[in-house]
């Protein structure tokens, strides 16, 4: 089975084949033998050969066999990236299926530029302070608005340099998750 995988902005080519001993997985030309045990629906125990033999039908064994547990957390909406926990370390992984679906919907290009221009409430809460006015020049990561939720005051920041195009809320109003608060240009 062939997959195109993206991690940390880098595309990777992956092939998975069942073998007599488990799985042979080739990542960007590097082949590794993997013994797999399922722990539950989202968790796998992997024993991965450390050696990467060049060529040949079977991977070389250098005697080292690394043990990893991976837990795969699915996004609420299918098609988005997966979070794969290696042990307990989270790694965001996009499988090709997910990317193609996004591209088909025409979202991919939009997410890159549009998301940075729109400041959206990530959770329901109350607007405590608006820190900028329409027309203000703002810098990347500059705090724009403070929303109180879960007993905490949360600063929402600019996703890029720009100017404030519009402010859609005022101090004191309650907002739902997903409410557009501020637009930049």
């Amino acid at each position: 089975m062939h997959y195109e995988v993206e991690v940390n902005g880098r595309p990777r080519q992956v092939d998975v084949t069942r073998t007599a001993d488990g799985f042979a997985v080739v990542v960007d030309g590097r082949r590794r033998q993997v013994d797999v045990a399922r722990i539950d629906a989202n968790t796998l125990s992997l024993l991965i050969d450390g050696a990467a033999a060049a060529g040949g039908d079977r991977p070389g064994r250098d005697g080292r066999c690394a043990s990893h547990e991976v837990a795969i957390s699915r996004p609420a909406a299918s098609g988005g990236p997966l979070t794969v926990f290696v042990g307990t370390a989270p790694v965001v992984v996009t499988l090709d299926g997910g990317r193609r679906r996004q591209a088909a919907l025409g979202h991919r290009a939009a997410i890159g530029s549009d998301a940075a221009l729109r400041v959206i409430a990530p959770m329901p809460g109350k607007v405590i302070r608006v820190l900028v006015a329409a027309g203000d020049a703002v810098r990347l990561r500059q705090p724009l608005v403070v929303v109180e939720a879960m007993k905490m005051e949360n600063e929402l920041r600019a996703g890029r340099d720009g100017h404030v195009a519009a402010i859609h809320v005022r101090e004191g109003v309650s907002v739902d998750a997903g409410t557009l608060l501020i637009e930049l240009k």
Partner: protein
Amino acid sequence: MKKILIANRGEIAVRIIRACREMGLSPVAVYSECDRAAPHVRAADEAYPIGPSAPRDSYLRADKLVDAARRSGADAVHPGYGFLAENAAFAAAVRDAGLTFIGPTPEAIALMGSKTAARAAAQRAGVPVVPGTAAPLAATAAESDLVRTADGIGYPLLVKAVSGGGGKGMRTVAGPDDLSAAVAAARSEAGTAFGDAAVYLERQLVRPRHVEVQLLGDDHGTIVPFVERECSIQRRHQKLVEESPSLAVSPALRRAMTSAAAAVARTVGYTSAGTIEFLLDGDGRFYFLEMNTRLQVEHPVTEMVTGLDLVRWQIRIARGERLDIDPDAALAPAGHAIECRVYAEDPDNNFLPSPGRINQLRAPAGPGIRDESGTGAGLDVPIYYDPLISKLVAWAEDRPQAIARLRRALGEYLVTGIHTTLPFLGWLLAQPDFAAGRFHTTYLDDVLKTRSGRPFGEPGREVEEVAIIGAAIQASLARGGADDAPGTALRPADRWKTQARLGALRKGGRVGRGTRW
């Protein structure tokens, strides 16, 4: 006392239920709409709904809580921390209903709840306070009067809410030009948050530590202070890591601080569990900051180094029993304990709350580890409350081993489905400054400001590789289906293993999760 209603939720409700069980008392839970399936409801003997999810409609409704206590036939109420724990009117309502409030008297709560009155009480006890105004600022004070008052205290200074807490209604002022704007902002924030717009001024110490003294008082006049807790690791005035003892406190300083704490408590006739907070400057001088008239979030670190159960003692004191703790033992820590607070927040996105469904949760265990959790897999972290998932506590013989244990345990803690502060905590505990004890109350804010935007748990190349392999195998299995029931190695089963497996089944052995064939 036979039955206790716990007027709280989350990990602290579970903690109190455990103490009830160990004492043969029947625990009663209350719950809001979104908490029906919460662990504290399932762990209790009885549970009563108290209204919609918003705190003001449920956990802050004294009338509904007292009513639930009456319906259940409880004879006492434990408030936990937060919500109504430091609300004198609630303590009075419980008492007026003929029930025992497991905490201090309403009078003590009211007195120490006013920051300016508490500072006056500390001064009566001969304990130094941070230089500041003795009374709240007059609401009508002219700007020139404010500036004159501030000049007498010195800059930089803090404007603080008289009824405040948790960093709200607080502003830093560098010089006279910023003063009136800061006073106005603090007043408005305090009015919204606490229903009391009164503020006062206090000098801001340079890089102080936050060191606090836990104490217990009984109805017979005995006050016992405990070895200090170090709580200087804070983000925006919120404690994130607490430990006991403090590296900055010598035995002589410990005697001085704990005696001062006991003197303040004695002055106000304090009973039950309480905490005196101090600021400690670089020269070993300490100043009374405030008193918390409740059990604190970080009480487990004191329990770990003293071997005592503070919740059990709260209940015993409420029953009128005498404190018979050896005061010397309470000041002699056995080993070292560190607690870190695991929150449902995204540390890589300015610590924004990350509510939602927890898919998987696997808590650490093993030597010296204590996990105080109030949630679990399959449950939602609600948007309505403090997003604390768990308090993870490590105990060991000394501080370096306690840090090593806590780091080991953080590496075992798996929470999927939402973002958590686990990667941040792992990063923090690996900092040389933390290991050396070189920190103060603004250390963390300073470090976070200068840090680049790199993620806290940045995966290495090999970890990325393993993630890719895992995701690809999972995807190919999802397509292939077939022989991948839990607990099985995914390869063609050979006859010998099949026979062994059948044999185990015949003998009544369980083929469960994690079984390898």
